[in-house]
């Protein structure tokens, strides 16, 4: 009796997992297939049916309508610079707050943590006006500064949580060897934090790569447009959309992130698993 029940439970588990995976992945597969459908076929027929034929026309149109490589480059610059800053500054702050420690560190930490719960839209108008005054509008920095600012709190939170788990003795031993705060930071804390770094970069990287709101507010020239902003070029007069070309563009712009993700997949999953649970 028991083995049969077990195998039933097992196949039920497998079935459920497979079903959930399908729910998570099917829409993305559909997106890809649609990007290969002839535009007419998509407009007239059942969008979820099997395409009558496949074509690369949509990709040709997508590249004609917008400077996709430029958008990808811009998104890359913004994401890379922001991620580096988020990691480095986050680690520094967490180090000062958690490892070095000082009177009032709890208050400062609290101040940072407020940032986790503030909606980014709050800052748009003031930031714009401030940027205009110092001539920062329409630059990479105008996107990077608020992106980093709003990501810092969660980064600091994750790093401080992680630093709690580095045993005190590690530091004490290093101190006895005569290592100062700077050497400890670069020699011990940083190398130990790899997993948390991956978590921070991955979680924030997704948001930054896809940020629309700051780019849309602070950037005006074609040469600085990031991907989400560039995708807007596919919206035509009065709101008409060339759907299949848009999906083709989406596929093109997702590719770099997807590649990074697939290559680093193991590290990311490992990092997420061990980096985020030490809280």
């Amino acid at each position: 009796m028991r083995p049969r029940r077990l195998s039933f439970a097992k196949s039920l588990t497998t079935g459920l997992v497979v079903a959930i995976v399908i729910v998570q992945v099917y829409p993305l597969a559909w997106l890809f297939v649609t990007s290969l459908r002839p535009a007419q076929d998509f407009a007239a027929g059942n969008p979820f049916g099997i395409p009558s034929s496949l074509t690369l026309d949509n990709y040709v149109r997508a590249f004609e309508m917008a400077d996709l490589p430029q958008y990808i480059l811009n998104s890359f610059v913004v994401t890379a610079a922001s991620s580096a800053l988020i990691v480095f500054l986050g680690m520094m702050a967490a180090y000062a707050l958690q490892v070095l420690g000082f009177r009032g560190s709890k208050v400062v930490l609290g101040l940072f943590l407020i940032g986790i719960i503030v909606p980014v839209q709050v800052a748009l108008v003031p930031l714009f006006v401030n940027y205009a005054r110092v001539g920062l509008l329409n630059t990479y920095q105008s996107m990077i500064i608020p992106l980093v600012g709003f990501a810092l709190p969660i980064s600091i939170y994750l790093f401080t949580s992680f630093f709690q788990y580095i045993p005190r003795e590690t530091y004490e031993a290093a101190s006895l060897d005569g290592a100062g705060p700077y050497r400890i930071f670069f020699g011990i804390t940083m190398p130990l934090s790899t997993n948390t770094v991956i978590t921070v970069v991955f979680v924030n990287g997704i948001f930054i790569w896809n940020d629309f709101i700051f780019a849309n507010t602070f950037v005006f020239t074609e040469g600085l447009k990031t991907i989400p902003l560039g995708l807007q070029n596919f919206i035509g007069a009065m709101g008409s959309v060339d759907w299949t070309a848009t999906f083709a563009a989406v596929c093109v712009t997702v590719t770099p992130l997807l590649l990074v993700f697939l290559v680093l997949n193991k590290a990311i999953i490992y990092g997420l698993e061990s980096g985020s649970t030490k809280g």
Partner: protein
Amino acid sequence: MKHKKRLAIAGVAMAATLTLIGCGTPAGPSQEGEIVGREISWLLSRPADGGIITVVKEIADEYAETHPGFALNLVTTPDRPSYLQKLETLAAADQLPEFFDTDATPFTRKLVDQGKLVDVEALLKDLDIYDDFRPLALDYQRFDDGSLYMVPFEFEMEFFWYNTALFEQAGVTVPETLDDFADLCGPLRDAGVIPFALDGQDGWPLARYMSYQPFRLAGPDYLNELKRAEVELSDEVGTHASEWLAELGSSGCFAEGFSSQGYTDARDLFTSGQAAVYQIGTWELAALTSPDLPEGVKGNIDFFTLPTVEGAVTADNDYTVVSGIGMGISQKAFDPLVEDFLKFLLSEYSDRIVETGHMSPIAGSDVVIPEGASELYARALAEVDNLGDETAFPWDTQLDPTTNSRLQQDLVLLVQGEITPEQFTKTIDATLAENAPKFFD
């Protein structure tokens, strides 16, 4: 008391930080002095690969050849809400570029009152091209006091396109009055057809329907009084319009789920033969007369103009004619170069835009019909010679923005039968009372 004072001081300090220094010395439209080449910008909300941008780019390149140092930087944000957000933040920071797209909205009016825009009427007269423009094209850009601060670049008429085969199949004919619309829907539905294709996602198409009855029953002034809350939407005219829309909804005139259908969905419903009527402007003529239309649709598309109503005060040939989003010129950045370039642009523009199959706001150039388009293309454009001299203004450019949003949202509820016409008019009146005074003092 002390507390209040401190707040007020903080406020003044903030005001100082937030309001930017600027406000160049106001200058008359005509600029004396030398033309010095430099880069100028035009912030647009037009399709990136559309005819206008292509033509303007071409002209700017030619101008640059004879004017070293000149460059025109075209920045387009076709999605209108995103564009407006950008424009408003730029205006707030006093960073408006040389040219920027905008409608004659209450917000633009405020900019004008601040002296930030060049008086286009005076400018066009100075450049001696004022009289070449189609009067309706200029009228569309005017504020309700008649002043003109935007240059039009389009000229399009809005029609109801219908599928003659589907009409025949359902045994219905072109409606004579607006109030006949609802009677079409039963037979069309029985024939398995969606009566009216409607882009409910964007808000403006349904707002057009809202504007029709008042325009016919009370004329163009109704809107001007309504937006100032001088008349109430719960009056006879507004109530009739609201009841009419509710009836269209309850008669199944629009696709179920229209509110989540976008512009393209609506057009596709019509051009694929699933919907019988489609309200849209002549800017879609290429799609409506395309040789690639499926069988059963090709050759079966015809159009009618805005029907009248019993006791109409506007003529049959008065209906919605638009000249698109206009182009404002920043007063601060206005100099001889900007003026000279504009002069060149407008002298070249008309002959080239007609090559793309679109009408020009400047009369005199004949549209080149695209190859392969059906006879409908020329026939629809020929209506331009029969136009009256009143326009049914779209409400979305006239109402204050808060009321406009509320109107567009609640119209959907009204048509879906979630609220009654009475609730609808009451809500809009309350919203007008709260917000109109902020824009129309």
